[in-house]
């Protein structure tokens, strides 16, 4: 028997999920994370989960890992000392950056610039110059390079990045400099900007290549530690890491290009949502991952998550593909307050954190957190099934009363206000990935996970009109599910700025073919044969003169014939959808990219036993005080483990399980589907997709309707009752990748 192990290391917990590939049977484990060396927590978890499953680590065939090692190195400023070699005249490329000062007019008064990832004293200029078209303006002066390397060596840098002007057009000088570094300073790892990111814009390319160097020693040390530990336990699994773009890459490749996994953590959630999508048959999803301090959201269209061409970690934005996950500083721990000056109710971004935590944790917190508001409203019952902690209701009330007193309203109204404001902030994030990208959220289902996601998901669904709201089984370990069930991915790209009239289908095809080969070779090395690979091409387009470009997905087949014309047409459609107009200006190519993906593993999902519509066998408390829209109710509390497929839970209700609590509001209901998801809809609306149980990978023809074309008279999201169509039936209008 073979087992796959998904492992997601978060700030507080390390989540593991072991899947028996043959039966789909799963085992979950949660152990405290060990920030000083994450591999310790990982190994503890592995041992526990193997014990539960009655296997030895040797029986695990694949280990798939979402890690925040790279993220944390940046956030905590604990990366390597990086040396940077640049073209003469550009040593301050990171110091000047894009000259941008955040914060609006007069924002400079309160902004202090963070230090660059490669310090100026470790930045050296060398004499050389490549022109804009790749021409050599001035050859490399070797002596200036040796001098620079010796200085960096004396400064004890731990990694070096070489980033020269226009190297995207000609990387020869960067390579030449690497050769010299190998002679002068052989032990130091070197990142070349044109290899990390062969794209135009010197600051962004330099920063990305520097970030690669910055996290490289930390990441390779960590991965090596894991491999060593695994070897000592006789564990021979293939080891892979989740990239920021949601694909998997082998440890070896990850160690060389760690900049690709700076958002590995959040990508796990999206990958998990994709797993849910494949099981339940919903292809268009908004993901909603609410934790203690922040909330991550993303959009999945027709089973494909949206990607963007950058990764943002703290102050650092690098050009590496990542799933378009937007984060707002709103979570269960967000603190509510009423500033004296304005008398407005504000929630977050300050958070109660783990210590002291919300008032209800009884660890000394007295400020009202969102969690406290949920306790006051009865959305979070004081004792949870399987939970070790009892919540202090009185403390929550006392905390929320502060807000009530300041606004002269009752404690319940104050609590409801806090929840509404935080919901609105999170809705803002959902808007960013949907409405602002031209998608109508009513064409999507909302899948909720993370510690607090299922608590707020129903309310978010009402705001966005995204039905049904899906609560997958084990919402607390969904990231690990994602790690274990996603596929390999790799890409290769190149800047190629040409107007359509300056190039041809033939030229572009030739470049894309060579990029494909580059991307495919590395997957072959990871043991994925060509026959299991799918290649997609992307052409980044804009109108000549524009600055921003859009990746347009293209099929390799037939590209040579009319690929550019088709891509141009697709771009026009996108531009109209997003910006209300298209131009008759000439199209211009900016970047070319080949994306290669492997196959999804064939993991079977668990089926839930079938039952009738009546869920009363799962009731554990029929008399729980619950507030909704200013009204007090007697709500039922259900044990999720006892709910059967087909059961319908009428709101107001609470469904509890091992690591999460689901709220179903008074005017909504929850239907249990064949794979155990709770599908929440307004009463009277049937969540059709998924009930008919299409098998994994079923071909539901669901496509998003572009919002720009949606009727002008927008319907109030909260009132979109029976009119909102279940996603799987929404009519397709136009389909456009990202």
């Amino acid at each position, binding site marked *: 028997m073979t087992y796959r192990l998904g492992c997601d290391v978060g700030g507080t917990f390390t989540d593991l999920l072991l899947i028996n590939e043959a039966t789909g049977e799963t085992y979950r484990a949660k152990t405290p994370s060990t920030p000083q060396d994450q591999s310790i927590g990982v190994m503890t978890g592995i041992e526990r989960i193997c014990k539960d499953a009655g296997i030895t680590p040797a029986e695990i065939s694949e280990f798939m890992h979402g890690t925040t090692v790279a993220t944390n190195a940046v956030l905590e400023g604990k990366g390597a000392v990086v040396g940077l070699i640049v073209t003469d*005249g550009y040593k301050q490329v990171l110091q000047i950056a894009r000259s941008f000062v955040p914060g609006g007019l007069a924002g400079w008064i309160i902004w*202090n610039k963070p230090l660059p990832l490669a310090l100026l004293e470790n930045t050296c200029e060398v004499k050389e110059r490549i022109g804009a078209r790749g021409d050599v303006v001035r050859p490399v002066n070797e002596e200036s390079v040796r001098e620079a390397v010796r200085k960096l060596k004396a400064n004890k840098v731990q990694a070096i990045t070489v980033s020269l002007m226009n190297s995207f057009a000609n990387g020869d000088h960067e390579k030449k400099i690497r050769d010299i570094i190998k002679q002068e300073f052989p032990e130091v790892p070197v990142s070349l900007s044109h290899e990390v990111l062969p794209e135009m*814009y010197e600051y962004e390319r330099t920063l990305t290549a520097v970030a690669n160097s910055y996290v490289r020693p930390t990441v390779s040390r960590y991965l090596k530690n894991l491999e060593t530990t695994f070897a000592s336990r006789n564990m021979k699994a293939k080891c892979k890491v989740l990239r920021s773009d949601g694909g998997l890459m082998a440890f070896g490749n990850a160690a060389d290009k760690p900049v690709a996994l700076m958002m590995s953590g959040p990508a796990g959630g999206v990958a998990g949502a994709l797993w849910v999508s494949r099981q339940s048959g919903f292809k268009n999803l908004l993901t909603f991952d609410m934790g203690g301090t922040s909330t991550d959201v993303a959009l999945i269209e027709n089973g494909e998550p949206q990607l963007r061409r950058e990764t943002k970690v703290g102050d650092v934005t690098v050009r590496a593909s990542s799933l378009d996950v937007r984060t707002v500083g709103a979570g269960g721990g967000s603190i509510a307050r009423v500033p004296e000056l304005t008398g407005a109710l504000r929630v977050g971004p300050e958070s109660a954190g783990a210590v002291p935590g919300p008032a209800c944790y009884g660890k000394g917190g007295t400020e009202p957190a969102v969690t406290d508001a949920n306790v006051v409203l009865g959305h979070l019952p004081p004792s949870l099934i399987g939970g070790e902690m009892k919540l202090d209701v009185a403390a929550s009330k006392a905390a929320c009363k502060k807000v009530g007193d300041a606004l002269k309203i009752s404690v319940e109204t104050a609590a409801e206000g806090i929840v509404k404001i935080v919901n609105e902030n999170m809705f803002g994030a959902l808007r960013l990935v949907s409405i602002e990208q031209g998608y109508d959220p009513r064409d999507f289902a909302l899948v909720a996970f993370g510690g607090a996601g299922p608590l707020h998901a129903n309310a978010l669904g009402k705001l966005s009109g995204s039905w049904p709201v899906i609560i997958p089984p084990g919402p607390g370990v969904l990231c690990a599910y994602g790690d274990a069930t996603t596929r390999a991915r790799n890409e290769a790209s190149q800047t190629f700025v040409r107007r359509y009239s300056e190039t041809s289908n033939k030229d572009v095809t030739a470049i894309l073919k060579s990029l494909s080969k580059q991307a495919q070779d590395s997957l072959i090395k990871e043991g994925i044969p060509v026959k299991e690979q799918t290649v997609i091409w992307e052409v980044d387009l804009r109108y000549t003169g524009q*600055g921003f470009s859009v990746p347009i997905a293209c099929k390799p087949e037939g590209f040579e014939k009319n690929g550019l014309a088709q891509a141009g047409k697709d771009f026009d459609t996108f531009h109209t959808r997003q910006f209300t107009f298209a131009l008759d200006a000439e199209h211009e190519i900016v970047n070319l990219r080949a994306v290669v993906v492997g196959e999804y593993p064939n993991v079977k999902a668990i089926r839930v036993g079938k039952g009738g519509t009546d869920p009363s066998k799962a009731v554990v408390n029929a008399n729980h005080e619950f507030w909704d829209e200013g009204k007090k109710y007697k709500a039922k509390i259900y044990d999720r483990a006892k709910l059967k497929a087909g059961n319908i839970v009428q709101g107001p209700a609470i469904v509890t399980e091992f690591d999460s609590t689901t709220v179903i509001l008074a005017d909504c209901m929850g239907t249990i589907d064949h794979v155990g998801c709770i599908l929440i809809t307004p009463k009277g609306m049937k969540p059709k997709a998924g009930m008919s149980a299409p098998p994994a990978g079923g071909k539901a023809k669901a496509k998003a309707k572009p919002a720009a074309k949606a009727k002008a008279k927008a319907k109030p999201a909260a009132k979109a009752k029976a009119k909102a169509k279940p996603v799987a039936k929404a009519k397709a209008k136009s389909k456009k990748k990202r």
Partner: protein
Amino acid sequence: MTSKAQIIETNKKPFKKVTIDPITLDIIESALRNARFEMDATVFRTAMSSGIREQHDAFPLIANKDGKMVVGQFGSFIGGFLNNYDGTIEEGDVFFTNDPYKTEGAISHANDWLILLPIFFSGRLVGWSCHFGHMTDNGGKVPGSMPTDATTIFEEGLVTPPTKLYKKGVLQSTLLEVMLNQVRLPTWNRSDLNAVLAACRVAEKRVKEMCVRFGDDVFVSACQAALDRNKRAMSILIDKNVSEAPVSFEDYVDDDGRGYGPYKIKCTMWREGSKVILDWKGTDPQAIGSINFYLNENMLKMFWGIYMIMVFDPAILFNDGFYDLVDVRIPQGTLLKPNFPAALSCRTHALGRIFDTFAALLGQKTPDFLCAAGFSSSPHFMYSGTNSKGEWYQLYQIGFGGIPAKPFGDGPDGHSMWPSFTNVPQEYLEAYFPLRIDRHETTPDSGGAGRFRGGNALRVDYCFLEDGEISIHDDRWLTYPWGVNGGTPGKRSEKILYRTNGSIEYHHSKCDNVKVKKGDVLAFITWGGGGWGNPIEREATLVATDVRRGLVTPEGAKRYGVVVNADGVINEEETRKLRADIKSKQPAKMPVFDLGPPLAQTLANCEKETHLPAPRPPVFRPDFHAAKAAE
């Protein structure tokens, strides 16, 4: 002045005043803020000129039905439009203008193209979305349309009074085509105008959605409540921080591009009861050249208000609510309120100096909150010509420099003081213009010394790869970006042209039509930010770090009383001696401002220090008559 415009609403029912609970208010406020950011995103992604899409020289706002800004940046100018527009405003109309004189300075020069879009819902006007963007070209006598030697607005290209670009939803294409026929880069203007309009449409859509979601009565009342809330907060700030005793400050625009200068800008601020008065009496009469800044009083209130908020309480959300609390008095016929048809295109320098003036005024009573002077204008560089393939190229670029030191830390080097501005990547410039950027770095020691260091000036070396023409717009080449609380001034700006034949030309900070040849290199050096606090109180190790980083030279470190070698190694003994020596020469209490040498001395040394002749004293010719013509 009262509104002349006639608003046509098909639904005559007056709005019902609704009491807005604080939670609904917060929700509507954040929804409006999201809409505003969406406007930004739309413009930056679809505009074509690098001025707008890379440098973000474009400004959105969403206003309530009376034209008061609820979210945005520079405050509302809709009042100026409503006061002067003599016609109907109907559903489906979209207004265009770029006429400062016909809008009471809603836009301050003709390069700014403004779209005003009234938002109707169920037959009633519920709000406005507006956006203006700086066009790379607006026609007129020089590429870029900002002639430094202009004496009237007629030399500055197209000037369109408020006009309907769309009438009841129908594009007035004749108007558009006539406009585009006047400019050198019609494709850019068309696309940029499209972008600005698309952003207004986004806001319109969002406002309508809010009217559906909350009800239009609630939306209208909520906008008012947001304004009221801001007024309450600001009135507390004003009472606390503005004294009844008047404080004054004066500063200068160095010259007018025609050889005259410097021009004085003076403001006196005091409080009467709950009201603040900003009186610009003492400001010099209008210039003959194009540096006049036709200032909309409301925008000035907003500039001032934002400074108040940023300095004293950044948590307040700003909108137009506090306007009643500020009384702005600008004498007619001055640099800040010139009579028609004075030239206006190069107003950026006066705009910047106003910000320096505010910083000085607000901090005088509370020096702990004082910021130094700095990079308060946005210098321009233009390069145009016909390349060897016979194609026209035209670059308009905004420069950056040293951010002033402030009470909370050092000023960043080579950054922007303007919101959301970014530089154009040098690789982009090289790919699209016949240019090679040989150097893009900041100048060591150009930031003023202080406990907090002023940001360094930016130096860009443009190597021209085709024969062409350049224009330069900058300032502070003569007077100094001052330091505060013991901090010293930053270095002044310079423009040096290195010819291929080895000759060196020092160019004026405001000039047009300078011919350049292939291979010539222009060093465009801006100015540094002033320092904050006594330099000898800066930790010596910080000074040493700056030396190691090449931001301060060993020689420059002596201004801090630090003796350090090029490797950043401090000589402790020498440092102690030098600091003691400096201290013994300092007054017991450091003066609040260090403006550099007295003006007379600066003028006397001008040629020696700057290689440029001193400007002649301004001549004020009252040949433009009072605003009759504009009415």
